[in-house]
């Protein structure tokens, strides 16, 4: 497996501009001869599809939702980072770059992160130009807020609906191109496999989720922007439909999968209420700007709260442990996500958790309301408070919120080079689906930034470069009549037939729940050799059971949510095993990956830079064969590796 990152030569700050100059261009009148498939219509996919169509390429865009406007980017609440330094507080491209590399616990590729910081400013300009109603000050200029892992205010936001507004911006640009006929949009279509011709990605096989028809689509290259794999945990903050299938199918066709064990557990989610729950809800991290996180010092007091004998307001100041402020005085409640989540877990493990399950800590606005007034707090977080009240029935203006960590984002993904091209030539990967920018931990408000960076500013250049390299004579030469399409289509059809024919007794949802339990227990916030080895065995057994006892009701030739879930769960089970293998291989703790064998005396993550400063990239070798590990060594020329300290 060739893991040449193709990072351009030259000083960090000049790499992207010199690379842009060196890339091949395609003559405007030749662009209409090429076609591009974009799978996914979130920030990365939607922005890439719109931008490529604007340039003149013929784009086909696919999404599983009923409209491209519903992609899960929409659910991001808090904001988007950019190195604008509008607050005159010392921000710069280099600082955003540095914060992101440090926040990722020194496991991201320097050059990619620098480019992300470099284009961040242009993203805000682009969004404002397309009508995104960011929050503004009375003077009419854009407002900013702070986010975890940074000491400057560089986060732009649109109330608590930033993701929605950014997505609507990309969606409206996409819609314009659909209206013009430059993008052909396929709603309610799910990609089920990738087709390669002579080693290059040349098409996909999709299932029309309305008619059940399995169809071939060919193009000159393929862009995957299919999101993350957080739903491997069953319970996560991801949308119900988020899945790993497109990425995992591409992996099985030869794309390297990097760092699958890097998953992010977000500290501020609403605690679990029962075993029939299908979804966890995130409360924006921006709440940590004003909310103070605490738990009772005394487990006996916590026990009383759990039983409902007293509530949080009745706990005296000296009885409270503001544990983030105590442990990390300089970042306090704005410590990065991985650190905050683990701190909450420690508190709950020590029997000091609140909520009926004991799995919760307080996020308290009492002091902020006393200081700034209820109206100010309402202005800042009103919709989040309403959402909390709607879900829990409690009023956070009166009683402190309860929060607990939940799976939220996955930093791992398909390996890509500097051009965002995977190990399969002609297959590009953008957004959460790739592994490129966040290392072992993502900072708040950086996912939106990365999605739009890939979609607006990177893929439109690098895809054009690939097409230019292929030459105009090659444009449109591969059609769906090529035998490779028939072969892959037959595989897809056989798999669907298999799901329908097992006729066992257990539903896809039930298997999904069992899978989630295994992964959460063994590959969640704390991981151990013993647990991971056990999990791999359990997952192999679960996979066997799945393929012999699955029950899919209904028919394959129409809308069938059970069949859709069966396909996704089948891939999640295999993928879960890969995650555990990766976590087992990585004998260190870094970012979201915490191995209990590797921690400092006071319980902080202990990295092993000497042996693990690499991206772990897995090559698929066969269903019953162990995958092969390849390493992309990470070279740090501009940042000095240090123990990440937020104290």
């Amino acid at each position, binding site marked *: 497996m060739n893991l040449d990152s193709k990072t351009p030569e030259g000083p960090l700050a000049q790499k992207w501009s010199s690379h842009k100059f060196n890339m091949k261009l395609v003559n405007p009148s030749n662009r209409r001869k090429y076609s591009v498939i974009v799978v996914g219509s979130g920030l990365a996919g939607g922005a890439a599809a719109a931008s490529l169509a604007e340039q003149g390429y013929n784009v086909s865009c696919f999404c599983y939702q009923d409209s491209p406007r519903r992609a899960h980017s929409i659910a991001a609440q808090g904001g988007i980072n950019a190195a604008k330094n509008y607050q005159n507080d010392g921000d710069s491209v280099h600082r955003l770059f540095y914060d992101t590399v440090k926040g990722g616990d020194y496991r991201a590729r320097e050059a990619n992160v620098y480019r992300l910081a470099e284009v961040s400013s*242009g993203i805000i300009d*682009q969004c404002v130009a397309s*009508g995104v*109603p960011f929050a503004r000050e009375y*003077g009419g200029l*854009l407002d900013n807020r702070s986010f975890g892992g940074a000491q400057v205010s560089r986060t732009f936001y649109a109330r608590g*609906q930033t993701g929605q507004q950014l997505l609507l911006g990309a969606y409206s640009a996409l819609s314009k191109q659909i209206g013009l006929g430059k993008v052909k949009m396929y709603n309610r279509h799910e990609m089920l496999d990738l087709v390669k011709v002579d080693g290059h990605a040349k098409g996909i096989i999709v299932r029309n989720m309305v008619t059940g028809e399995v169809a071939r689509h060919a193009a000159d290259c393929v862009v995957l922007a299919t999101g993350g794999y957080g739903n491997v945990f069953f319970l996560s903050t991801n949308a119900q439909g988020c899945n790993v299938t497109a990425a995992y199918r591409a992996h099985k066709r030869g794309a390297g999968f990097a760092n699958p064990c890097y998953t992010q557990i977000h500290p501020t989610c609403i605690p679990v209420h*029962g075993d029939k729950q299908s979804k966890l809800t995130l409360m924006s991290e921006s709440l940590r700007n004003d909310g103070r996180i605490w738990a009772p010092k005394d487990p006996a007091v916590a026990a009383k709260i759990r039983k409902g004998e007293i509530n949080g307001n009745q706990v005296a100041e000296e009885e409270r442990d503001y544990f983030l402020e105590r442990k990390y005085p300089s970042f306090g409640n704005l410590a990065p996500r991985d650190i905050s989540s683990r701190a909450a877990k420690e508190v709950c493990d020590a029997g000091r958790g609140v909520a009926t399950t004991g799995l919760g800590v307080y996020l308290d606005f009492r002091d902020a309301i006393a200081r700034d007034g209820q109206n100010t707090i309402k202005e800042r977080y009103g919709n989040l408070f309403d959402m909390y009240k709607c879900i829990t029935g409690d009023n956070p203006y009166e009683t402190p919120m309860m929060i607990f960590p939940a799976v939220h984002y996955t930093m791992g993904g398909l390996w890509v080079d500097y051009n965002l091209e995977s190990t399969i030539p002609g297959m590009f990967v953008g957004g959460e689906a790739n592994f490129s920018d966040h290392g072992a931990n993502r900072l708040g408000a950086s996912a939106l930034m990365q999605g739009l960076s890939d979609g607006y500013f990177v893929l439109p250049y690098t895809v054009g470069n690939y097409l230019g390299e292929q030459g105009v004579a090659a444009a449109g030469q591969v059609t769906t009549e090529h035998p490779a399409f028939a072969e892959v289509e037959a595989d897809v059809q056989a798999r669907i037939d298999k799901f329908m024919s097992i006729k066992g007794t257990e539903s896809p949802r039930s298997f999904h729940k069992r899978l989630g339990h295994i992964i959460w227990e063994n590959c969640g916030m704390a991981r151990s050799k013993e647990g991971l080895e056990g999990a791999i065995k359990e997952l192999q057994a679960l996979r066997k059971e799945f393929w012999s006892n699955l029950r899919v009701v*209904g028919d394959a030739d129409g809308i069938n949510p059970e069949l859709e879930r069966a396909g996704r769960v089948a891939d999640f089970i295999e993928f879960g095993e890969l995650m555990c293998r990766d976590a087992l291989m990585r004998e260190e703790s870094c970012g979201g990956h915490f191995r209990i064998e590797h921690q400092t005396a006071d319980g902080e993550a202990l990295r092993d830079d000497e042996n693990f400063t690499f991206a772990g990239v897995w090559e698929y070798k066969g269903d019953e064969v162990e995958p092969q590990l390849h390493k992309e060594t990470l070279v740090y020329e501009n940042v000095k590796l240090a123990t990440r300290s937020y104290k």
Partner: protein
Amino acid sequence: MNLTLKVWRQKSANSKGNFETYKIDGVSEDSSFLEMLDILSEDLVSEGKEPVAFDHDCREGICGSCSMTINGLPHGPEKATTACQLHMRHFHDGQTITIEPWRAKPFPVMKDLIVDRTPLDRIIQSGGFISARTGSAVDANAMPIAKGIADYAMDAAACIGCGACVAACPNASAMLFTGAKVAHMNSLPQGKPEKDRRVLAMVTTMDGEGFGGCTNVGECEAACPKSISLDMIAHLNRDYATAQVKNFFKPVA
């Protein structure tokens, strides 16, 4: 809680549908409405029957996928709440709940509670955008926008495109949806250059898709999970009238 559900079942777009009655036991008050439907689905699957098909995705009230009429009200009885954010504590033990798909001619039923809402996408495709070619933008602070205008645009832009306004309207009008998008874009300075052609194109498409006109009933605002105000329809009418007058003298598009 134990509940009786009367659910609309329809195999496909072309088949005839009917209500089926189901009993469901042991639902937690803390469950969301869709989690309650998940439980029903698992019960049905265990009996070898097809679960109820419904659109849903984020379950955070923001993607706009969920679309069901609960006891006659789109998204159910709670104000400013999507079906996915509706919790069972708002119902009582022993209650009978009727669940139907959106009912509107432009939204044909595809299966059970799933309807086709692509007409809303087509309204956007015809003009619901501000043309800003990627990479062509000036500095974001080059054009200050008064906070009041930005806030108003944000109020309008909060629309999640679920279509509850259409389902609630006796005329199946999409004017709240269209008005919100027009108000968002036409009120911002960036959106001014395309203001007139935008509103004309969107209204033409809206009418062409078979949505009815507004007769000021106000059901749309009451049903809207994001509390989009009827003022947006006034804004739409105002901009539409202005554009028509201008268009009379000199074509704007």
